[in-house]
């Protein structure tokens, strides 16, 4: 183990942003809208700007 690689990351709690990168499939962006599919039903648009502000505050 070296100082430059934080290998502990795989045992500590997963960061929400890393998780959302994966679960939302498009990466977390600071501005812009995100479209989530409601399979075969409809599309939901989320205003990510508000979301990111909250992520920041809770970090």
């Amino acid at each position, binding site marked *: 183990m070296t100082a430059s690689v934080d290998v502990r990351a*795989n045992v500590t709690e997963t960061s929400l942003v890393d998780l959302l990168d994966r*679960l939302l499939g498009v990466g977390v962006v600071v501005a812009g809208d995100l479209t989530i599919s409601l399979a075969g*039903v409809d599309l939901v648009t989320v205003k990510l700007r508000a979301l990111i502000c909250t992520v920041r505050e*809770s970090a």
Partner: protein
Amino acid sequence: MTPTYMYAITRHLTKRQVDSIRGVAGSIVRVLDGDGMSCLVSTVQLEEFGEDALRRNLEDLSWLERTAREHDDVVRAGARLTATVPLRLATLCTDDRSAQQHLEEFGDAARQALAKIDGHDEWGVKVFADSQLSVFDGSEPVAVTGTSYLQQRRQHLQRREYSTSQALREAEEIFESLANLATDARRHRPHDRRLTGDERPMVLNAAYLVERRRTAAFRSAVDVLANSASGVTAVLTGPWPAYSFTPEPEI
């Protein structure tokens, strides 16, 4: 109408294998079978997952975090049992019949994805440009005359820029050399500094699909690269279910 929430498509699983798994909002996870594959699903309430409710809830950070972690728990439980292709957060169908239809439509892509990710984990590698930046940031120009102040200021900014582009090059080299050890690789968008709360800019946010028997080799490569590359710090995350390698269903 009670919507069906879909978590992942897996190789065939029995009802019994999943009976202790809990889903989002305390729901009970079930398997739907189709075409020799299974889909992990649960029934959720329209009041929480209907279109209007979802629109509202996705903007509520505590709801989003709880739901994301519950979704992740189900996907990880599936991945511990068999090859698992994760689906995106809030993949909802009107009912089981509609979910089954989607499973069939997605069948060939899902089968290919299952074959590809079988025996693999996803690993994340984030690379940050190092503290040279903050050293320069700290050495603000001290000149007294306007002209020499501007000169120093320009040099200061040039050094900063140079150092960032150097870090980007290092990150690109890291991305490529690690990709050689992986079955597949892709880039996520680097996180904004406002998200990381770190003054060092993130120059790479990559995901790798790594064969399990090559895990040790991959991890030590991250270690070696992070040490040989000057001016960057690499952070490894994982193992993850193969989230970044799920084919996009056509909508």
